[in-house]
């Protein structure tokens, strides 16, 4: 039968950490980083090919690399890391044992084998269909099979997470309500269950179809259900990385949410306004009515966007409040200037917050507007937008918290601290660059998933404006920067995890500084006295940028050929 759970006590946080939870976090995080390295490498190849002066890969390998890139980073890297986040937010933060570690390992094994199977299918050249695999273009059956196995594994991981919440409650390992970060992780897990169910509904028939057992899959139906998975999975990412923001703010500053109620409501919005129909991916498909599109892109009032806008205030607000309490009260921004910009956990988290909001958030809402989508659909604007959300947002946040997990969970001293200090900047600025320049190219009409913007082999000649070439060149350069940042991350993590100095059982890591003594800020009932003018100015700037950019795009739209 199962052995009793073994615990150690964390010298930094005082939390009880169970052995099997710890091992699972390690395994999932390591697998995640491996696939980030592989997928990031494909991303670099793709970007070098789209740089007209370099045009690196031949066409068939380009499309193959693009398929592998999308799958490995968007699905495999992010979801493996999310499993680590789920186990951390449940077992570790609640000082509980993990429910069913055997199950968790089974899930891990399924995910790993699924990821490998799909990669093999892609690399053998039988499944160059992009990770969206729109029918009727058909991949090898193992392509779908791998994704399904991966999803089942992730579903098991979510169940283990929910089980752990129950165990912790029954065994009374904590008092009162679960922490905000755990709550955020819980919203991510709930959305994940919905996501995986949608994935099963569409991918299982598609697998059968690729095996010849089903004769027809409607392309529009496929897309509608596929995006019920694809879109919701992005909401998982948002819930997870916002949780990570809160966690880092708490660990680096001792920051306390300004109001638990508001922050939790904001998370709840993600579940309630998930955009079940994932309408904003279907705005220029045949046959959907305007009423359906308008309602489902916005649920009449953009409440999921509201959720993110609230976090955009409360996360920096809680940091500002914590810093002011520590005495950084001069002017509007002393709290920000004197923040630990040399601590990669903080710098990564803060850039993630800023880029996610300014680049990813604004562009996403604009592109998801019923009519405006017409001037952006399937142009490079789309990858530009989601590199801001999933790369500068999710990926950067996950990198940032890795710097904290290495000493806390892997119990190793971080190596190459000087490199680590710069890593978030190199990666963050590189990734922000590719987002911006792809959006720029998209605004000029450049197609996504396209090997040759010079159309050298086309039957009829055509040319994009010369500014498009400039954009693609800049995109290539920033891609190199992002790739260097990604490589720095992988090198630092691998060398610390395998060769870093082991921390003694009761030894506190010295880096990155995570002051456990940081005082919790404010107490409830002090709501009237919360003073965060710097954050108020920041969100004000954000709001103005949002409004201006939104209307500029209506202006662009008004200039295209009238159509109805």
């Amino acid at each position, binding site marked *: 039968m199962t052995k009793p759970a073994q615990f150690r006590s964390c010298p930094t946080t005082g939390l009880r950490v169970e052995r099997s939870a710890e091992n699972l976090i390690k395994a999932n995080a390591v697998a995640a980083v491996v696939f980030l390295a592989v997928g990031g490498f494909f991303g670099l190849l793709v970007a070098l090919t789209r740089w007209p002066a370099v045009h690196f890969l031949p066409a068939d390998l380009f499309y193959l690399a693009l398929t592998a890139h999308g799958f490995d980073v968007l699905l495999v890297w992010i979801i493996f890391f999310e499993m680590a986040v789920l186990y951390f937010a449940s077992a570790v933060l609640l000082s509980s044992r993990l429910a069913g570690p055997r199950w968790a390992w089974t899930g891990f094994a399924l995910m790993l084998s699924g990821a490998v199977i799909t990669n093999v299918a892609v690399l053998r050249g039988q499944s160059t269909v992009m990770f969206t695999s729109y029918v009727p*273009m058909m991949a090898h059956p193992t392509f779908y099979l791998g994704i399904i196995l991966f999803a089942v594994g992730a579903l098991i991981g979510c169940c283990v997470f929910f089980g752990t919440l129950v165990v912790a409650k029954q065994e009374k390992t904590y008092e009162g309500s679960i922490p905000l970060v755990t709550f955020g992780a819980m919203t991510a897990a709930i959305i994940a269950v919905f996501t995986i169910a949608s994935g099963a509904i569409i991918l299982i028939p598609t697998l059968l179809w690729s095996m010849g057992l089903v004769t027809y899959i409607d*392309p529009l139906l496929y897309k509608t259900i596929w995006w019920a998975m694809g879109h919701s999975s992005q909401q998982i990412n948002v819930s997870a990385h916002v949780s990570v923001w*809160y*966690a880092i703010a708490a660990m680096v500053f001792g920051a306390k949410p300004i109001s638990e109620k508001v922050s939790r409501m904001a998370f709840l919005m993600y579940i309630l306004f998930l955009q079940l129909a994932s309408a904003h991916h279907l705005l220029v498909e045949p046959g959907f009515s305007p009423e359906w599109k308008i309602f489902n892109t916005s649920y009449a009032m953009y*409440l999921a966007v509201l959720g993110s806008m609230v976090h955009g205030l409360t996360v920096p607000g809680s940091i500002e409040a914590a810093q002011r309490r520590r005495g950084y009260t001069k002017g509007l921004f002393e709290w920000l200037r004197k923040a630990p910009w040399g601590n990669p956990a903080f710098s990564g988290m803060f850039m993630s917050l800023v880029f996610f909001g300014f680049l990813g958030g604004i562009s996403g809402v604009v592109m998801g507007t019923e009519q405006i989508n017409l001037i952006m659909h399937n142009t490079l604007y789309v990858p530009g937008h989601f590199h801001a959300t999933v790369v500068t947002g999710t990926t950067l946040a996950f990198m940032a918290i890795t710097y904290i997990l290495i000493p806390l969970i892997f119990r190793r001293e971080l190596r190459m601290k000087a490199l680590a200090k710069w890593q978030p900047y190199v990666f963050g600025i590189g990734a922000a660059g590719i987002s911006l320049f792809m959006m720029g190219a998209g*605004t000029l009409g450049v197609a996504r998933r396209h090997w040759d913007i010079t159309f050298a082999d086309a039957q009829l000649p055509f*040319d994009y404006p010369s500014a498009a070439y400039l954009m693609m060149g800049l995109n290539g350069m920033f891609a190199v920067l992002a790739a260097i940042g990604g490589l720095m991350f992988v090198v630092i993590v691998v060398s610390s995890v395998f060769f870093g100095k082991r921390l003694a059982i009761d030894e506190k890591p010295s880096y990155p500084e995570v002051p456990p003594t940081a005082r919790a800020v404010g*107490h409830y009932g002090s709501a009237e006295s919360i003073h965060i003018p710097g954050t108020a100015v920041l969100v004000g700037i954000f709001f103005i940028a949002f409004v201006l950019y939104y209307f500029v795009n209506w202006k662009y739209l008004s200039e295209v050929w009238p159509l109805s």
Partner: protein
Amino acid sequence: MAISPPTERIWWKEPIARVELIWIVIAFVWGLVMFSMMIYWHGAGEQNLSSEAYKIKPQAFAQKAQTMIDQYTVRQEGGFPVVRPPVGSDVYLIARLWQWWPILELEKDQSYRLHLSSMDWQHGFSLQPVNINVQVHPGYEMVMKLKPNQSGEYGVVCNEFCGIGHHTMVGRIYVVE
């Protein structure tokens, strides 16, 4: 802290800070504005994609397009028929591996009913440099009323991945005075 249980057990009864409240109200109102903009544009704007679409077999669509091509071809260009359909008529554009067939010649400031459908996989109709982008499915015929408001030569790029020849799939539309 966000990583420990809330210190106030009954956190849901605590008052909300003023800045938070103000920001929530602003964000909420902005959401309503954005929602209303989409509805407003249906009345006041000129760019609203139609929802007219039919299920159709690829052969049937090709048949309709061929009828148009037979009737209104005015010349050949690089192996493509150039078709000049009557003003206001139904105009067909076939998407297939890897062509937009045929070349169309339209008159400026006149409306046409453009029909789009694919013979095989999905394609992306990307009219450049105007930058109008819509998805083209096999089995579905999408119809939209289009009114070119500038004369010139326009490219139709495919912007949905459609296999190894995807980047060679370019069509053309002429708009003449």
